[in-house]
């Protein structure tokens, strides 16, 4: 059987295909340039800088892992690790509890729930700077709102220096951070609750499931993907968060609330850019893993 020869692709079609590809590349080129210029270059440059002894006004020399070794030898660095992990974990748990509880409440057909929903978003809508400075004022030992309440109600006599003593500083920072961040959890979980099919609840009721069983077996599995993504995003933001610690305690007292972003900022203040960059680079592996998880989960949900 004679095989017909493959039909030669005309040079005109080849040129058209090449033009189409070029056209496509041209379309994405501006975005690629922007990403390279605004994300990739600064990111890679920061990594490079962390391996140099760069100070203000000098390009610096390659020093290998010297900056990382120096940091690892300081007590403050280990405090920053411990504190960052503590703030992220405790904040996430509290935000989850608060966000989930309020979302379940608002999800009910209650009168005025639209107003209540908007009201709950206020902390998130408020500029972080204003929010945390307000908290700082509330925490003031003399004339601060919390101390006034405690003394006026007779709950506690005397002054509590919320931000100035190790025993209360971290808890105070976490409380403010949770207040500012829980609305994101609330609104994410509320949206997820609304997407859980009503039929599943009705079927569970018919099967005799009580409220707890319906929550555990129907609601929670339905909103779990959103909770995981929210947890990952919130963890990244909290670990990278600067203003809540800086505005409240600047990492003190002693290093009771020192976290990585504040430590990096102190590095900048000493004009040793290489060391400051090394602090940030230390965070990369953990944050990178969180980012990859969050991104893949979100993409899977979209699919």
């Amino acid at each position, binding site marked *: 059987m004679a095989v017909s020869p493959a039909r030669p692709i005309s040079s005109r079609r080849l040129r058209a295909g090449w033009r189409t590809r070029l056209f496509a590349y041209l*379309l994405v080129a*501006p975005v690629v340039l922007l990403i390279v210029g605004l994300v990739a270059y600064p990111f890679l440059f920061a990594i490079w800088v962390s391996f140099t002894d760069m100070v*203000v*006004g000098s390009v610096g020399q390659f020093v290998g892992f010297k900056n990382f070794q120096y940091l690892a030898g300081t*007590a403050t660095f280990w405090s920053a690790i411990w504190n960052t992990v503590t703030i992220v974990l405790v904040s996430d748990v509290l935000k989850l509890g608060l966000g989930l509880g309020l979302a379940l409440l608002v999800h009910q057909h209650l009168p005025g729930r639209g107003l209540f929903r908007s009201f709950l978003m206020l902390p998130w809508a408020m500029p972080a700077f204003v929010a945390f400075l307000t908290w700082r004022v509330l925490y003031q030992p003399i004339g601060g709102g919390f101390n006034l309440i405690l003394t006026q109600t007779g709950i506690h006599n005397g002054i509590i220096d919320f931000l100035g003593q190790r025993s209360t500083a971290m808890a105070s920072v976490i409380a403010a951070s949770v207040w500012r961040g829980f609305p994101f959890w609330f609104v994410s979980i509320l949206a997820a609750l609304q997407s859980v099919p009503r039929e599943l609840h009705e079927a569970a009721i018919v099967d005799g499931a009580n409220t707890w069983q319906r929550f555990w077996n129907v609601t929670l599995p339905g909103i779990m993907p959103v909770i995981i993504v929210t947890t990952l995003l919130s963890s990244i933001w909290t670990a990278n968060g600067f203003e809540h610690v800086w505005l409240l*305690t*600047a990492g003190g007292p002693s290093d009771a609330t020192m976290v990585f972003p504040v430590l990096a900022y102190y590095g900048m203040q*000493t*004009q040793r850019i290489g060391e400051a960059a090394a602090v940030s680079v230390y965070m990369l592996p953990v944050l990178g893993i969180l980012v990859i998880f969050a991104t893949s989960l979100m993409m899977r949900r979209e699919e």
Partner: protein
Amino acid sequence: MTEARNPHGWTRRRVLATAASGVALAATSGFPMPAIAQSKKLTYWGGLIFSEEANALLTDTIMAWGAANGVETEVVMINQNETVQKVSAAVSSNTMPDALDVGLDLLLLLSRQGVFSTVDDLYKKIGDAHGGWFEGTDSATDTSAVAGGRTGIPFGVNGNLLLRRKDLLEPAGFAEAPKTWEELVTQAMAVNKSPVSGLGLALSSVGDANVQVNVLQSYGGRIADDAGKMVTIKSEATRTYLTWLKDAWDKGLFSPGSTSWDGAGDNQAYLSGQAAFIANPGSVGIAAKKDDPELFEASAFSPLPAGPMGQVSPITPQTRAITAASPMQDEAKALIEHLAQPEFMNAYFNVAIYGPVLKAQEKLQAFDGSNSILVGLLGLAQNGTAPAAPDVYNAAWADLSSNFVIPKMCQRVVVDGWDFDRAMDEAQTQGQAIYDKY
């Protein structure tokens, strides 16, 4: 038909192709640095300070000088707390101003990198014209060893003064300022009653808390040896100092919150009537004079107390520098010379918080004794100790100060309850690690 609907041939493909080409062209043409003609505008970064009048006076004077001399001039006031960040970015991106106000730490660091022009001729000219420079200022701002010449022209000195509530202390029997740190505790004890705390001294990780270094030094403690290489924080003298600190802390003399204050913590404590003593460069006095004249009248300024080894009250000179890459060297020099004129400086001293740097400035009206803050600053300029003295002022010292090693040692003792040895050991190790980098 097609032609009729689309007479210009603008197909979807053509529209997209044109748009893409346009965007690509715009994007690519934006990257090469355009050949901008060298601007002849002189840009000056002034140091923004607590006094709005002083900031406005500096700006207006520079602009007036520009107008009178046909030099287009721009003044940008930079918050002094952000100078390091702004200058760092400007050095990296090659966008430094032609001239700027700069503190001694940054001047030394950048002079080593060759960022500033040497201005020995201008320094001599101004000194000769105004009776010579004060000795402390002269030695503190000498960058010859690191830059081959002087790079900064001093225009003012500041440093900590002791500010006290005489309206509280005099009725308690203390008409005179405390001469020693021990006496300070005694006086503070006498007026320490809520809501007033005896001592409004910062113990947090802020620049104000580095006054604790001066206390430590006045007790005989040292940061490093005479070579400025070997850290010597752990010593019996430091232990004596820590004993003084712990004693004052245990007596409840320090203001609540002093271990977590920001840079304005002591200011706010004093201005709100919650502290009897603070160590401050004078900004609180300026604020009180403007917003609370009653408090200002009830306050008095004096030098920092002394310890067993004497008084340590360092001056911090502020300087003006010219960027080496500036195409307007002559104009910048002329401007800085103009800014040293007594008419301007007298007006500036009256509203700013700086002491004099030139001997002829002693005779300015500003220092005639009518302003107690300026009297204190004049005394500081005349008798203040050199930066870091008796330690060696070098880059390691500046790094250690910026890392708040001594305030952190204090926090270990009063916040974390560490014993003195453990706190000194950590400070010693941390300090040596910093000094080893240089």
